């Protein structure tokens, strides 16, 4: 019996489990020494006779192979409960690092979201457990099949829960960045996105334009396919429509399957809030109507959302290069030799790559890529550029056995140097993504490679134009301003957005 000792019930359960695991112990129990508990233990044969009740004290009972085992167990029980171990935050009961969702919930009972980041083959089972515990789920894991995704999302919807993902890289919930996400200010714009870097770009730009977000919900890349039916995006729209703090809703995705697109737009139109829709690659005019405002680029999406969030009227966004970048075109062109005529885009963000291909095609014609718009523009050898080439280095092909290029810059740096050796390279186009999850010093990683590329080109009496955009905010751990300053020092022309970088590059080689 240990006097006046109070432990929370989770600790008591863990303590009993530890005792039961001791050598020679068959049963162990730690209960409050009440009359009824004592009676129960006597009836169960665990106490030889009743002891006087003492309801505020803890009664520890062990049954084991012999007296030596039980004696040792009681000694260690007392030691565990009365000694305060140096690393024990729970008064002698050592804190156990959660090894399961259930254990995690026990140590943090008010949690309502589980972030699943396991190899794909285990992710669905873990997500199912989390849902059964009543938790929303963010599945960072990829390689989860649609056959597994669909029932998870259906179960979640039936129980008023969200499954963000699979392959959901980014979300910001109640101001907390999850996965690869930026530190942006709170505001009145709610975002639902089927694209991780698309979500990062719009939330960062919203922050840059002086507004903020309520929630940024990731859906995962498969959500808007016919088979899944846009379950998470539809739930997201509904939740943001009900959310009093959200004034404007912003949707980002590649164009969904037509049936899903209809449902999404229908749901959006019923939200009674202004909804900005960026279905990257879709004609904005086919989307616009009523409270729905279709836009063409991620930057336009952020601008439109900010204007609407401040109660201002929407203007028509121009496709032309802004004046501040136009002045850079001729000086850059003058530096190029006659044979330098192609853009080489080396991207870490899939959506940045896709948006760039779309914008370059408008003025340059064919653009080769591993994520092409047309089949015939699929690059035959991803390791070797041809004509205008834009590569998504985050593609599975490049990430097998190595970290994502937002974290590990080695592959991109090697490719920068490789492109510098090519006499046809005029512009190297880059995205730089800041925020949690990303490399802590992208400029520090890139600048040596850029300098080496310049040296190689200079030896051949050429100059390469480096253009990029940094996706992030000053509140990100890497700090936007510091990163931009170091890249500018290295001669990189920086634009405010990925779309402007693509348009500037196109103008230079046109």
């Amino acid at each position, binding site marked *: 019996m240990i006097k006046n000792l*109070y432990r929370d*019930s989770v600790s008591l359960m863990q303590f*009993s489990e530890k005792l039961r695991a001791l050598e020679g112990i068959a049963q162990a*129990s730690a209960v409050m020494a009440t*009359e009824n508990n004592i009676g129960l233990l006597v009836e169960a044969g665990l106490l030889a006779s009743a002891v006087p009740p003492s*309801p505020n004290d803890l009664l520890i009972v062990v049954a084991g192979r012999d007296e030596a085992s039980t004696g040792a167990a009681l000694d260690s029980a007392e030691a565990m409960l009365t000694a305060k171990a140096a690393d024990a*935050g729970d008064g002698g009961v050592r804190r156990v690092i959660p090894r399961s969702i*259930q254990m995690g919930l026990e140590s943090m009972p*008010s949690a309502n979201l589980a972030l699943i980041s396991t190899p794909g083959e285990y992710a669905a089972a873990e997500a199912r457990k989390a849902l059964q515990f*009543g938790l929303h789920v963010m599945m960072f894991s990829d390689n989860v099949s649609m056959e597994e995704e669909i029932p998870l999302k259906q179960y979640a919807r039936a129980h008023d829960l969200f499954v963000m993902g699979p392959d959901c890289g980014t979300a910001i919930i109640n101001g907390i960045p999850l996965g690869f996400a930026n530190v942006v200010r709170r505001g009145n714009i709610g975002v639902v996105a089927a694209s991780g870097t698309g979500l990062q770009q719009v939330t960062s730009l919203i922050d840059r334009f002086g507004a903020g977000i309520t929630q940024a919900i990731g859906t995962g890349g498969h959500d808007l396919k016919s088979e899944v039916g846009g379950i998470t995006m539809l739930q997201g729209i509904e939740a943001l429509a009900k959310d009093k703090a959200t004034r404007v809703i912003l949707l980002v995705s590649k164009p969904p399957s037509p049936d899903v697109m209809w449902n999404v737009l229908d749901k959006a139109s019923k939200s009674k809030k202004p909804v900005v829709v960026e279905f990257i690659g879709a004609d904005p005019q086919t989307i616009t109507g009523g409270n729905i405002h279709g836009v063409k680029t991620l930057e336009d999406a952020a601008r439109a959302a900010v204007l609407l969030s401040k109660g201002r009227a929407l203007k028509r966004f121009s496709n032309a290069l802004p004046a501040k970048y136009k002045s850079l075109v001729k000086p850059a062109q003058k530096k190029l030799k006659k044979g330098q005529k192609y853009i080489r885009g080396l991207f870490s963000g899939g959506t940045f790559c896709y948006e760039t291909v779309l914008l370059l095609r408008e003025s340059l014609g064919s653009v080769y890529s591993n994520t092409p718009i047309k089949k015939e523009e699929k690059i035959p050898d991803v390791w070797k550029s041809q004509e205008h080439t834009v590569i998504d280095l985050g593609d599975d092909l490049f990430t097998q056995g190595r970290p994502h290029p937002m974290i590990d810059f080695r592959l991109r740096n090697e490719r920068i140097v490789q492109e510098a050796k090519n006499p046809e390279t005029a512009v190297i186009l880059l995205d730089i993504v800041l925020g949690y999850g990303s490399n802590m010093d992208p400029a520090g990683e890139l600048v040596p490679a850029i300098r080496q590329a310049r040296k190689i080109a200079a030896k051949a009496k050429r100059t390469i134009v480096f253009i990029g955009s940094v996706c992030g905010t000053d509140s990100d751990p890497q700090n936007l301003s510091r990163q931009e300053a170091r890249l500018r020092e290295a001669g990189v022309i920086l634009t405010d957005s990925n779309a402007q970088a693509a348009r500037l590059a196109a103008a230079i080689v046109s």
Partner: protein
Amino acid sequence: MRLRAVSLGEAVPRETFDAEIQSVFESAVNLRLAKEDRLVTVLISDQYELPQGIRIWTKDLSLRTLTPGLRAAARGGILRFDSSPLAVDLRGAPVWKCRVPQIAADMRSSVVIQGWSTAWELLNGQQRLKHTDIVADDLFQLDAGSLLYQRLGRSILQLVSAAEEFAVQAATRAAEKLIGLGPGVTPSGDDILIGFLAGLWSMAGQDPVRLSFIHSFGADLMQLARQTGEISRTYLYHAAQGQFSSRLSNLAEAIAYGKHVESMVREALRVGHSSGMDSVTGLLIGLCVWNNPSPLHPFPAGRGDGSEGKDHLWQLHTV
């Protein structure tokens, strides 16, 4: 470090009191009020309210810096602790009051039945998933399970029968077998009784017979509560007066009004390791006591008097 109380439970003295630190947890500390047989609880939470609670909200504080046995005192609305720089400003904090006695749930309503069924299903699902000592569905399989199960099951059935007949003495005898029974700092039997009272209070409305039973049974329960620990005793003390934690009262309201049942069940289940589940078990059973002629009837035909047989298994009839 001075923190402002976000809210105060109705039973918390406002200005001046003396106390001793009774127990300390990561995000809660219990204070034993001088010359009174009850506790008040300082808790860190963004929303969880207690009748005896002084709620503060901060992310950067562990209450483990406080030491059991040392003194605490409030003067002029500022609560201070011996040997600690922590102070809590109670002045101006809004008072939280549980609304369970005002609910007057109509258990014949299809909305309420639906809410109850949803809650029951979720409760059992969570209990099975977490492999807890008690699973509500199995509670009345009186010839099976552990000794604890059998004792709980029989005593609850006796309690239900007594409450149905407004027999205070019989109810008290049944409650005596539950007090302090089972695992946990607040033993399962206590949590079930607290939930059971929440169920009765939810249905009492202005019915004088029901209210009379609850008051008399509650008074007896406060006597019986001496047989259990101080923390349980405090909850039982407030339960007897119709005051419960916000998680339990929110769930009772959700079932009664048919709104947000699922999320409120989940909130209520997440208290402690099994305390939340035990008190929800009690609540849902309590809600079925005076429900005739509702189709909700979760009890076997026998009532722990030895007449129950294998045909009288736990049955749940819902519409």
